[in-house]
């Protein structure tokens, strides 16, 4: 039905466009007498037809299915009425299967079959109704707009207003995305905190969401003390930064200060390739190559290395972040004015002295923000840790032990069969909330610093 509706919209747009343009072109006095080109009369007519149709789709699209669902559920006898979200979803699935004719015979109760059949007919009725309504609205809009066609009618200006509104709406998508993120994590987080005290979540030392403390306990499936996750995340992030920090920074310094154009033209694409490698590939590399290697190495040195050691995940994550650190630092170092360097050379300083004593101090705030962005990246990275880090919350700073991270737990809690409304599912959103706001704050500060840094040297 949806596709029919969109085909109807497209058809109406074309019809209105052609009619509007023809009507304008046929005005007495020829096109010279028109304020706007016939094309704009056509475009205006097309938008006059499309806009009401889209509005109807936006309003009815989400509304109709709910109405039809409510109607179908209302047909069920009281003993089959769902009592909670989960039962409702199951019931709806059955109804839907009946309506689609995919329900195996005898698998659902008779009243559900009745409701399912009613659902089917209502659904098709609602679909056709919406289509007819939309076409009527579109035709009405088109006719109204066609009546306005006149030599003096400012179709172009009108159409440009519409275009501008569309442009503004598009740039609002970015805002909506942020709002969507904030609300989706915030609501579920609040629901989680209604069941589980927030201080236990933020400061608790035990993370075991899978194991029930008592089986008869309602809505609480385990312990949600997130400190082990924060510690694990920090540990892996620190290892990653120990790799990416110096290596990224030194390669940036070399690229910006020492490298000949030829070396740059080789190394830059190389780093870009490294930056373009998907994280799942790094994860595979970490889990199947680096982790076993480190384990073997550790065993030959007589160390006890976990097979999912933080070291392996951190190391590979560090490699992943190298190009990120190096390109950000490269920009920052290049923004330091040449005059500062010249001043230092003029006093007889060597290149490295100039870099250490003049360039880096001048670039310091920019570098700090580059590192902050890299940290935020490391904290939010998911695939490498999902594939190479552990699953159990271990409160340790030992890089050879297995630790788990915030992102790993979000993935683990939300992938697979989710229970509606369970504390387990909700806790993942609470973790997402922490992750989002932590990285948000880091990013905001880093972007502010970098902006100020840019202004300083512009």
């Amino acid at each position, binding site marked *: 039905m949806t596709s029919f509706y969109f085909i109807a919209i497209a058809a109406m747009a074309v019809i209105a466009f052609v009619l509007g343009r023809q009507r304008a072109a046929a005005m007495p006095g020829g096109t010279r007498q028109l304020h706007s080109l*016939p094309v704009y009369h056509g475009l205006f007519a097309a938008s006059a037809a499309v806009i009401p149709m889209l509005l109807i789709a936006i309003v009815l699209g989400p509304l109709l299915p709910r109405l039809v669902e409510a109607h179908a559920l209302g047909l069920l006898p009281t003993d089959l009425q769902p009592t909670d979200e989960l039962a409702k979803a199951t019931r709806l699935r059955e109804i839907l299967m009946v309506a689609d004719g995919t329900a195996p015979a005898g698998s659902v109760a008779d009243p559900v079959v009745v409701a399912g059949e009613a659902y089917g007919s209502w659904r098709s009725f609602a679909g056709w109704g919406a289509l007819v309504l939309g076409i009527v609205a579109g035709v009405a809009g088109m006719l109204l707009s066609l009546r306005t066609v006149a030599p003096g009618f400012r179709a172009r200006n009108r159409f440009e207003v519409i275009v501008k509104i569309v442009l503004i709406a598009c740039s609002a998508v970015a805002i909506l995305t942020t709002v969507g993120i904030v609300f989706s994590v915030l609501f579920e987080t609040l629901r989680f905190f209604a069941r589980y005290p927030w201080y236990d979540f933020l400061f608790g030392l035990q993370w075991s969401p899978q194991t029930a403390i008592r089986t008869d306990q309602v809505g609480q499936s385990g312990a949600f003390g997130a400190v082990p996750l924060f510690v694990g995340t920090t540990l892996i992030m620190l290892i990653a930064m120990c790799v990416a920090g110096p290596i990224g920074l030194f390669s940036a310094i070399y690229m910006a200060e020492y490298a000949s154009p030829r070396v740059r033209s080789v190394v830059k694409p190389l780093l870009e390739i490294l930056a373009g490698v998907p994280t799942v590939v790094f994860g595979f590399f970490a889990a199947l190559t680096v982790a076993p290697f480190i384990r073997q190495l550790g065993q030959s040195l007589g160390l006890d290395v976990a097979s999912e050691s933080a070291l392996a995940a951190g190391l590979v994550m560090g490699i992943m972040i190298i190009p990120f650190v190096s390109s950000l630092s490269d920009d920052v170092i290049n923004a330091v004015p040449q005059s500062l360097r010249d001043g230092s050379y003029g006093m007889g300083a060597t290149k490295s002295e100039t870099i250490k004593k003049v360039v880096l101090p001048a670039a310091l705030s920019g570098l700090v923000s580059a590192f902050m962005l890299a940290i935020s990246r490391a904290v939010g990275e998911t695939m490498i840790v999902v594939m190479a880090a552990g699953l159990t919350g271990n409160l340790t700073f030992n890089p050879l032990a297995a630790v788990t991270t915030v992102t790993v737990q979000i993935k683990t809690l939300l992938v697979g069969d989710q229970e509606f409304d369970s504390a387990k599912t909700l806790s993942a959103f609470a973790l997402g909330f922490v992750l989002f706001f932590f990285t948000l704050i880091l990013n905001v500060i880093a972007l502010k610093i970098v902006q100020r840094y840019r202004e300083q040297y512009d």
Partner: protein
Amino acid sequence: MEAMVADARPSATIRSVPSEGFKPAKVITQDVNVYYGQKHALKHVTIDIPERSVTAFIGPSGCGKSTFLRCFNRMNDTISAARVTGKIGIDGLDIYDPSLDVVQLRARVGMVFQKPNPFPKSIYENVAYGPRIHGIAASKAELDDIVASSLRKAGLFEEVKDRLNESGTGLSGGQQQRLCIARAIAVGPEVILMDEPCSALDPIATAKIEELIDELRENFTIVIVTHSMQQAARVSQKTAFFHLGDLVEEGPTDMIFTNPKERRTQDYITGRFG
């Protein structure tokens, strides 16, 4: 002359009577001020632009010539910081009237810029663009005619008639500037504004453009901003001298150059400051 534009007249129409020695005024301005944010870039300028003749604006750099010129086709609208007050009328029509469509104004008032700025498209497309968006040509043949005659009027047709489909940016600087003039002419404007049209050109190309301006005078009202005193003297009939946002002096070109009334004008044209 200021008294001629009586306040009692309806605001949408501004009229002037022909002044001594000039053709009747095509454009008249009354107490025009331009502000860029806090900066008062143009102060109380009142002047008539006579029709079918060339008016030159001269003055030291930063005195507001371009700013004033850009008021005539409301190009200042594109600068968000700019604010214009006062009245400017073309044939008695107030161009700052809110009900006026700036796009139609710009079809009547063409503009040629300091640096030649052809679109990176074919020569034909460059000239045809204006007629197209204004719906001037009813058919392809008519459009071809308009393109050809505009290029001819701009003195470029003979040079480019075999390569109308080649890119406009491939022409020489002088040719590019003439292409821009052709592009401006193609929409059939009444006024053509030229902001230092020759400043990016060599002397030979400059001479060609000057010749062209002299020819165009028959059909168009031309306002030209120039830094070259000789150029102003050669091509213009009327000259206005600006200094620090003030219109210091205006009058017939030969008068301004031989017998300026103001001390500042004299200093400027004799090269005592620049």
